[in-house]
C-alpha cells in the first residue's frame, strides 16, 4: 500500500458525504446503495464512520461529470479514466468525481459503481495506489464479485496505518496476493491448459508459460468471470480441448476463456460420485487412456471419459497405487511421462509406470525462483 505524499488525513473520525448529482444510468436508490456500501468497506476496518447529508457542505462530495469539469483533470469519455478523487482536506479535498461518459452499473457489466467508488474513497481517505494486484487500491479496474468487495490485507494495512484499527473486537483480515517465489506457497488446484500450466490459489491464478521465465499472477475472474474463487481441483481433457474446474460438489467446463453454458453442474449426476464425496481435492486426465483420476481425501476414483462412467472397483487407497506421495493431495498435473503431486509446500514427481516417487521438489519449483 502507499499513503499519499505528506500523509494527508481527516482529523475527525465521523465524516459526512453528499451526492451532488446522480447518473441517469442507475436508479437513485441504486446509486445511494452503491455509495453507502463503498463507504462501509472502509468503516468496517477502521474507526471511521460515514453519514450522508443533504444540507450543508459535506466532507466528501460525490458527483458525476462529463469531460472537462474545471478541476485540472478532464475525463476522457468511455473507458480509459473512470473516476478520480482528491486527498483529505477542505473544499475539494476528499471529493470523488465519476466520469459520466462511462456506463455505470450495479452488476458484473462495466463499470460497477460500487467497485469503482470503493477504490476512489480510498483516495478520499488518504491512500495512494498500491502495486499489489490483489489490492482494491491497485490502479486498474478489475472485475471481481460485485456483491461483496473484499479488501485485501494490503488495503487494511494501509487504512489502519493512517487511522488505526476499528473498534470491532474481532479485527477483520483480508486475503493476501500469492507470490510465486514465496517458500510457503501452497496451491488449491493445478492443471495444464494448451501447453501451459496454471496453478490456483484463493482468488488468483499463477500462470507459467514455457516461453516466459516469470509467473503471471492475476485474478481467476480475469479469464473466467463466472468461476468462483477457491477452485479446489481442475484437469484438462486435451482430446476435446476442455478444462474442468471443481469446487464443492459442483463443476464447470471451459474451452479457452469460454465457460460452457449450463454449468455449474453436480458432480454426482455426471461422474457418479456417492453423496459422501463433498469435494474433489485434485484431478488429472491421461490423454492416452482417456481415463481421469480424481483424488478425494485418502482415496482416488478413475473415470472413463470415453465411456463417460466411473470404472468398476473404485475408490481405491491412494497409498496403494501412488506410494510415497502421502495419503492426501492438494493438486496434481501431468507433464510428459510424470505426474506432479502437490501437498502443502512439497511436490512429488511420480513415475506411474514404476509407481515410485523419483524426486521431491518445492511446490513452486515451476517458477524458476
Amino acid at each position, binding site marked *: 500500500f502507499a499513503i499519499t505524499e505528506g500523509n494527508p488525513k481527516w482529523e475527525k473520525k465521523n465524516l459526512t458525504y453528499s451526492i451532488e448529482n446522480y447518473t441517469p444510468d442507475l436508479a437513485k436508490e441504486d446509486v445511494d446503495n452503491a455509495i453507502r456500501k463503498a463507504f462501509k468497506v472502509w468503516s468496517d476496518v477502521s474507526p471511521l464512520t460515514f453519514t450522508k447529508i443533504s444540507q450543508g457542505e459535506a466532507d466528501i462530495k460525490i458527483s458525476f461529470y462529463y469531460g472537462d469539469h474545471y478541476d485540472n483533470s478532464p475525463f476522457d469519455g468511455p473507458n480509459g*479514466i473512470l473516476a478520480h478523487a482528491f486527498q483529505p482536506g477542505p473544499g475539494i479535498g476528499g471529493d470523488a468525481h465519476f466520469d459520466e461518459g462511462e456506463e455505470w452499473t450495479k452488476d458484473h457489466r462495466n463499470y460497477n459503481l460500487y467497485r469503482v467508488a470503493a477504490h476512489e474513497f480510498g483516495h478520499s481517505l488518504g491512500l495512494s495506489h498500491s502495486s499489489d494486484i490483489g489490492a482494491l487500491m491497485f*490502479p486498474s*479496474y478489475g472485475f471481481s464479485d460485485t456483491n461483496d468487495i473484499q479488501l485485501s490485507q494490503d488495503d487494511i494495512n494501509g487504512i489502519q496505518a493512517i487511522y488505526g484499527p476499528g473498534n470491532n473486537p474481532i479485527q477483520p483480515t483480508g486475503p493476501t496476493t500469492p507470490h510465486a517465489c514465496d517458500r510457503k506457497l501452497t496451491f488449491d488446484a493445478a492443471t495444464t491448459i494448451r501447453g501451459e500450466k496454471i496453478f490456483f490459489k484463493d482468488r488468483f491464478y499463477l500462470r507459467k508459460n514455457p516461453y516466459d521465465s516469470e509467473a503471471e499472477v492475476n485474478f481467476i475472474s480475469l479469464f473466467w468471470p463466472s468461476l468462483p474463487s477457491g477452485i479446489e481441483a481442475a484437469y484438462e481433457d486435451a482430446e476435446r480441448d476442455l478444462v474442468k474446474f471443481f469446487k464443492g460438489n459442483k463443476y464447470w467446463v471451459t474451452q479457452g476463456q469460454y465457460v460452457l453454458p449450463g454449468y455449474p453442474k453436480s458432480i454426482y449426476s455426471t461422474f457418479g460420485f456417492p453423496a459422501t464425496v463433498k469435494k474433489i481435492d485434485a484431478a488429472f486426465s491421461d490423454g492416452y487412456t482417456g481415463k481421469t483420476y480424481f483424488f478425494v481425501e485418502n482415496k482416488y476414483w478413475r473415470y472413463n471419459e470415453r465411456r463417460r462412467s466411473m470404472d468398476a472397483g473404485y475408490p481405491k487407497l491412494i497409498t496403494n497405487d501412488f506410494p510415497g506421495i502421502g495419503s492426501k493431495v492438494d493438486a496434481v498435473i501431468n507433464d510428459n511421462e510424470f505426474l506432479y503431486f502437490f501437498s502443502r509446500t512439497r511436490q512429488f514427481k511420480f513415475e506411474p509406470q514404476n509407481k515410485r516417487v523419483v524426486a521431491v521438489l518445492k511446490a513452486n519449483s515451476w517458477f524458476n525462483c
Partner: protein
Amino acid sequence: FPAHLETEQQDLEIVQNYLEKFYDLKTEGVKISKKKDSSPVVEKLKKMQKFFGLKVTGKPDLETLKMMKNPRCGVPDVSK
C-alpha cells in the same frame, strides 16, 4: 507497412499520454520519438512497468501497452 508505422506512432502517443498523466513525465507537449536509452521516457516507463509487476524492459512492449489500455482510476500512481 504504412499501417504498421501508424500503429507504432499511436502506441507512442498512448505511452506518452499515460506517463504524463500517471507518472509525472514532463515533455512540455513535445511528441516523444523512438530515441535510444536514457531518455526520461525510458526511466518513467521502467517505473510504470515495475509498479505493475510487468517485465521491466523500458520498452512499450505488448504487455505494457495492454496494461496502459486497461480502464483505471485517474489519480496518478506517483504522487505529485
